[in-house]
């Protein structure tokens, strides 16, 4: 699929201090964002986090109370949605039911461009080929499956070669297998067309798979921005760590620092060493200790769990739960009043029994310290002050 010379591929999008309030509630609170041209950016967050509102602000269906939106360095504050030259895909597909697939795809051309009839037909055919639906051009939306409708919606959104494509949880209505297939499809199309994509989702694995850049949103604000691996490996807050991937967040207090080695004391008295935190912290601060389940090795412990014995990079706890998940066994290991999540491969799972003493070990640096500030920054959790 060629990128013709007349398609400048992707727009650069900038959000500056966007605010949108409904009554007393802020739906979007001081959101600023730089989207590089041609990037695939996901707005990721739980419902109510402001991601859909932000998307609607970019589209122009909502007007910000404060702040600005720049597309290709020009403010679009006074540009109504039908003039912003954007493509959009909705969760409910929103295909025009009284038009055929070809007519749906050709709609933006009829509305916007000055293409001749022949050129328009050619462009429509190109798009349908791109989404691999050329054979269905004369059908009506109600005759298509969900996945097919979504692909038609994409073709329609891309037909006038917009420099920005907005996608509002487009795969939410599809079942898991189909969703995964469509994710691959969308990435392929994005690579092929080169437009900038802003993609809203609440599914973190979807965001991790598809994005160049993820914007995690929480309570109307941006919690963290970064490429998927950065967010996964170096989350900046307990909320992000908890939202992306599986995590263990253990409440701890900083006990001491020796050079690069920081020591914290976990709830049950166990002492653990970690690398320096990425934020300002001092002895006596309460923090979260983050360890991902997949970073921990699990083996039965030959010793009883004991408090206040220097343990280094491992912890001993008691196995409380064991459940089968097909490819792995998930274990719940009690450490004092906290429950840690761990995993073992399918063939090893049978060896563990509830009530057993379990040792969890991890490599140097796999554990991170995260701030334990008040609720407004993190998850529902906060280290009790």
């Amino acid at each position, binding site marked *: 699929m060629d990128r013709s010379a007349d398609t400048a591929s992707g727009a650069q999008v900038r959000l500056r201090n966007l605010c949108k309030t409904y009554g007393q509630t802020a739906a979007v609170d001081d959101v600023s964002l730089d989207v590089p041209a041609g990037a695939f950016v996901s707005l990721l967050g739980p419902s109510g986090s402001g991601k859909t509102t932000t998307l609607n602000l970019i589209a122009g269906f909502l*007007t*910000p109370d*404060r*702040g*600005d939106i720049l597309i290709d360095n020009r*403010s679009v*504050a*006074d540009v*109504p949605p039908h003039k912003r030259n954007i493509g959009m895909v909705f969760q409910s597909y929103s295909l025009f039911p009284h038009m055929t697939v070809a007519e749906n795809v050709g709609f933006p051309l009829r509305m916007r461009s000055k293409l001749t009839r022949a050129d328009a037909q050619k462009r429509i055919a190109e798009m349908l080929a791109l989404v691999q639906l050329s054979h269905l051009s004369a059908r009506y939306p109600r005759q298509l499956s969900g996945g097919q409708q979504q692909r038609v919606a994409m073709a329609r959104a891309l037909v006038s070669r917009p420099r920005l494509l907005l996608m509002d949880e487009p795969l939410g209505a599809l079942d898991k297998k189909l969703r995964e297939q469509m994710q691959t499809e969308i990435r392929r199309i994005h690579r092929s067309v080169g437009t900038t994509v802003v993609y809203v989702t609440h599914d973190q694995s979807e965001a991790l798979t598809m994005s160049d850049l993820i914007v995690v949103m929480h309570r109307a604000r941006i919690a963290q921005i970064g490429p998927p691996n950065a967010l996964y490996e170096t989350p900046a807050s307990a909320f992000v760590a908890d939202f992306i991937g599986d995590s263990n967040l253990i409440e701890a207090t900083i006990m001491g620092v020796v050079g690069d080695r920081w020591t914290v004391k976990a709830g049950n008295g166990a002492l653990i060493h970690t690398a320096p935190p990425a934020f300002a912290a001092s002895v006596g601060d309460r923090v979260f200790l983050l360890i991902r389940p997949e970073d921990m090795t699990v083996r039965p412990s030959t010793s009883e769990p004991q408090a206040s014995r220097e343990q280094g990079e491992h912890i001993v706890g008691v196995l409380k739960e064991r459940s089968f998940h097909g490819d792995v066994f998930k274990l719940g290991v009690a450490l004092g009043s906290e429950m840690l999540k761990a995993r073992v491969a399918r063939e090893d799972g049978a060896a563990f029994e509830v009530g057993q003493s379990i040792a969890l070990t991890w490599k140097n640096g796999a554990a991170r310290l995260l701030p334990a500030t008040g609720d407004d920054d993190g998850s529902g959790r906060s280290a009790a002050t």
Partner: protein
Amino acid sequence: MTAIAEQAPRAKSVQHRQAMPALLLLPALVWIAVFFLLPLVLMCWRSLAAESYSFKAYWIVFSSPLYTKVMLTTLESASIATVLALLLAYPMAYTLTITSGILRGLLLMLVFIPYWVDIIVRTFSWLILLGDHGLINVLLRKLGIVHGSLPLLYSEFAVLVGMVQILLPLTIVVLFGAMLRIDRTLIAAAKIHGASGWNAFRTVFFPLSLPGVYGAALLVFVLSLGFYVTPALLGSPRQTMIAQTIMVEASELLDWGQASAAGLLLLIMTTLIAAIYNRYFSLDRLWGGSDA
């Protein structure tokens, strides 16, 4: 990063959005104001002006025995008609709730059709059915229950029969709408925990349907107060309702001032009832208002 102007670009589009709803509502509001509110205001003025700006016309309404009697009759007929309409509408609405598909569609159609027959004719048919040679009496005679004929017409009974038949479709529809909003799984939950069909209805469904009942009751009562055709055709002078009296004042006695006064008092009464009611049971729900 450059400093970005925040306020200026926004003004135009925000203003436009705020003007829109007003613009859309304006024609309707203006129309209602001109063709509904204005006439009422003028009528009020006229009722005062008629007797050189005094409340004489109003005083007559309050003090004359004729008006008192008529008002009492009106209130009585309206109350009984409301109760009867509710008693009959409830099982019908409930039946609609538990049926579905074709049967429900058919029942709805049967309920709706009489609504599209005009009031005069619907009332008028009772004239035929309840008369001395009407169907009812003929049947009763044939069955040997009576020998002469029952004086069914020109009575409270006839008026009520007519009124209820006219009020029923609306009552059923309002109740049905309210009942549809009751979560049916609550009934299932009651039954699975030991309630019989009757008990589940009594302790779960019925209490939840009461707001709908109150809403319907209010609507029906207020409408009943204004009935004209039915008491005029089916009732004797003893069943005269207030609308008839006002009509006589206006079209026969040509005492527009008096008619206006009586009419306004009637309007105040219905408005007050509706307003008081609306404070406790929001009527907005009837047309899917904001607090549905």
